[in-house]
């Protein structure tokens, strides 16, 4: 170490490209082998794990959906018993929301934000590694309990008193609540990383008005997570307290209140929708601009729409509670906000349409998914306007109309853009192209299958079919449509099968992509595909909103960064003027152990409150190991 200090620091100044790459690679690469893989803090590696994990959960959640559709295809079917059915729809909802949708959007942020803002790693990379292990263990907790026939059976919003100590026997509701704790912990960690990466690690010159729209959307998403997740943290913890040590938060006989749960849950639950939707909106903005071959129309209104949506998201929660008997005037304030959020949503749609109108669209698979998104999301948005109305909602609340509505918003509004984004960024992440032919098939089947499956549910809802029923009686007029829906679901499934086949095949043997296969404008395309461990040979200097479209003679870059330690540039928040050369932490195994210790404490506390006391000791030990300086060059200043 002492010798290290004596050697003069090696900077990239005047180094030959290949020599520079060798040095950077030596400094930034993870060490080989199993422990090296556990210890890595490379945002791209971790994001890839996150994405793969999230898609595995999508497949599992999808299989549950298929099981439900088989059960509902006929009246009084006996494919599943009510207990199993309740576990299945709870696990389906929880998996899709907490283990697929939120993590996959965060994962895209973890992968793309550092590249798009032109830095070498995410802020707090060890926290990032920690967050992945936490969500993985949280997901395993839910799915192992499902395999053991002890999964939660109280629905993904787990209303008390059904989930409370009196009516929710066993540990099922506790497992649900603790699984939530895992996912919120991981989401909060990622949110902090994204905020700080966007605020402090943007390439010099990337002032606020030059931040790529995807990064803006991820920033707003991160702030929503920071403000909303504490609510669910409070909810899940107090639920466990009520069940474990007999606190009385939700017991009306002792001054508690059943509606308190709904307030706290939906104060998180509604922003949750925008946590999922806003990143998708950022993806759409990116894809639309690239394949219209022009800069996005209405950058400023789009940023404003993201921010306004992000704030408004916190004033909508009561529209999930329109039939609980609150004063109509108070409810109507939420009607006003819920209706008004259609204005920023409309602004986004209009700006994307205008970009397509003004540009020269190239119909690649990512753009097809975006077109599918516009078609379906507008329906979801409009049914959103419908359920925002107190009287309208009185009829459709908790029916299949709502099931249709939120699948249009979440699948149409978020999964379609996400699949487009996977086709779009797959070449960057793997260095290989996905197949256009299979992509078109996948899009066609998913689009068709989705609409055939979910559109009829609007009608079922108006015909009076409540949601969360494990069966219905033959004398009700729902059988025909249900059978139709179940058959259509097969079309949807086949589309997803093709998508996964395409992804796996292309990963191994797709056509090599090159650094910039789409001739796109943002910084992630300025480096190799897949990007090296250090992301950029030299940190770019941003002189325009689409740096790759406006470069005249080569990409503007910086010099003077040290290459024998992990170094990146810290810049100011508004103007992105360089402020310091900051070091980025080295690989470490401690986040992994910290995640294990945290998980033991959380899982133990399902069974005994003492787990919190004894479990915090190993957590403290691992955290000290994590933060204690090791005297590396990264520690110099």
């Amino acid at each position: 170490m002492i010798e290290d200090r004596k050697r003069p620091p090696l900077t990239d100044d005047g180094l030959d490209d290949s020599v520079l790459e060798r040095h950077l690679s030596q400094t930034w690469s993870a060490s080989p082998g199993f422990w090296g893989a556990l210890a890595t803090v490379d945002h791209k590696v971790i994001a890839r794990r996150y994405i793969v994990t999230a898609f595995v959960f999508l497949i599992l959640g999808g299989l549950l959906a298929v099981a439900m559709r088989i059960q509902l295809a006929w009246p009084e079917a006996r494919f599943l018993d009510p207990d199993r059915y309740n576990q299945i729809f709870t696990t389906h909802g929880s998996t899709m929301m907490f283990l697929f949708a939120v993590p996959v959007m965060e994962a895209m942020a973890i992968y793309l934000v550092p590249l798009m803002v032109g830095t070498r790693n995410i802020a707090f990379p060890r926290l990032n590694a920690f967050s992945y292990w936490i969500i993985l263990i949280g997901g395993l907790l839910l799915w192992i309990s499902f395999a053991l026939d002890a999964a939660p059976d109280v629905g993904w919003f787990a209303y008390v008193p059904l989930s409370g100590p009196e009516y929710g026997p066993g540990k099922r509701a506790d497992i649900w609540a603790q699984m939530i704790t895992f996912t919120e912990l991981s989401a909060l960690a990622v949110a902090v990383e994204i905020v700080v990466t966007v605020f402090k690690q943007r390439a010099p010159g990337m002032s606020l008005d030059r931040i790529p729209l995807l990064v803006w959307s991820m920033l707003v998403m991160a702030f929503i997570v920071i403000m909303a997740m504490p609510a669910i943290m409070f909810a899940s913890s107090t639920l466990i307290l009520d069940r474990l040590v007999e606190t009385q938060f939700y017991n009306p006989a002792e001054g508690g209140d059943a509606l308190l749960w709904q307030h706290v849950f939906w104060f998180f639950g509604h922003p949750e929708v925008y946590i999922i939707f806003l990143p998708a909106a950022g993806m759409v903005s990116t894809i639309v601009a690239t394949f219209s071959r022009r800069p996005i129309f209405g950058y400023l209104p789009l940023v404003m729409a993201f921010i306004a949506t992000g704030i408004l998201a916190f004033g909508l929660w009561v529209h999930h509670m329109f039939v609980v008997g609150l004063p109509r005037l108070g409810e109507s304030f939420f009607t006003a906000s819920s209706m008004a959020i259609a204005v920023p949503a409309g602004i986004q749609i209009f700006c994307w349409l205008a970009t397509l109108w003004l540009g020269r669209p190239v119909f690649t698979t990512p753009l097809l998914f975006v077109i599918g998104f516009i078609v379906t999301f507008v329906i979801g948005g409009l049914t959103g306007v419908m359920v925002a109305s107190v009287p309208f909602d009185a009829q459709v609340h908790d029916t299949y109309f709502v099931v249709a509505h939120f699948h249009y918003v979440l699948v149409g509004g978020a999964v379609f853009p996400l699949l487009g984004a996977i086709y779009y960024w797959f070449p960057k992440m793997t260095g290989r192209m996905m197949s256009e032919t299979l992509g078109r098939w996948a899009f066609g089947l998913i689009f068709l299958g989705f609409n055939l499956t979910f559109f009829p549910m609007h009608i079922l809802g108006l015909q009076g079919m409540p949601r969360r029923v494990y069966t219905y009686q033959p004398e009700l007029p729902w059988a025909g449509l249900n059978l139709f829906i179940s058959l259509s679901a097969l079309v949807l499934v086949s589309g997803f099968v093709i998508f996964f086949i395409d992804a796996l095949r292309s990963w191994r043997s797709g056509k090599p992509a090159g650094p910039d296969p789409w001739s796109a404008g943002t910084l992630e395309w300025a480096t190799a595909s897949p990007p090296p461990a250090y992301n950029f040979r030299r940190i770019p200097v941003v002189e325009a909103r689409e740096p790759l479209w406006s470069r005249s003679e080569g990409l503007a870059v910086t010099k003077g960064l040290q290459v024998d330690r992990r170094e990146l540039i810290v810049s100011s928040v508004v103007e992105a003027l360089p402020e310091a050369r900051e070091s980025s932490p080295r690989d470490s195994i401690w986040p992994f152990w910290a995640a294990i210790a945290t998980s033991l404490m959380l899982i133990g506390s399902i069974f005994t409150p003492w787990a919190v006391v004894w479990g915090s000791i190993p957590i403290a030990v691992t955290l000290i190991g994590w933060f204690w300086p090791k005297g590396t060059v990264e520690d110099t200043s």
Partner: protein
Amino acid sequence: MSIGIAKYAGLLLAPGAWAINTELAQILPYVDCGAGTSWSVVASFGAATLALAGALVPHRRFAQGEPRTKLFIARLNVLVGLAFAFVLLLQGAATMLLDPCLR
């Protein structure tokens, strides 16, 4: 109001007014119903006025040949301020149309 904060009036004042008004909606209907007052009307339109003000304050910075980033922030604030003023006007409409005692 200092100049630094004034730049962000649209982003702070307008959503702030809206958030407070939304919270007040949980309390004022009970008060209005009990005492026959119209506090929710006053609160809503007061908040709408505040939001409009929040949109107009940064508007003044448009003409002054500000640097690019400053202009961007000012415009952003005006748009956000207007959006929230709209929401507050809709909430105001609710207070005019609905009886606070209604369940």
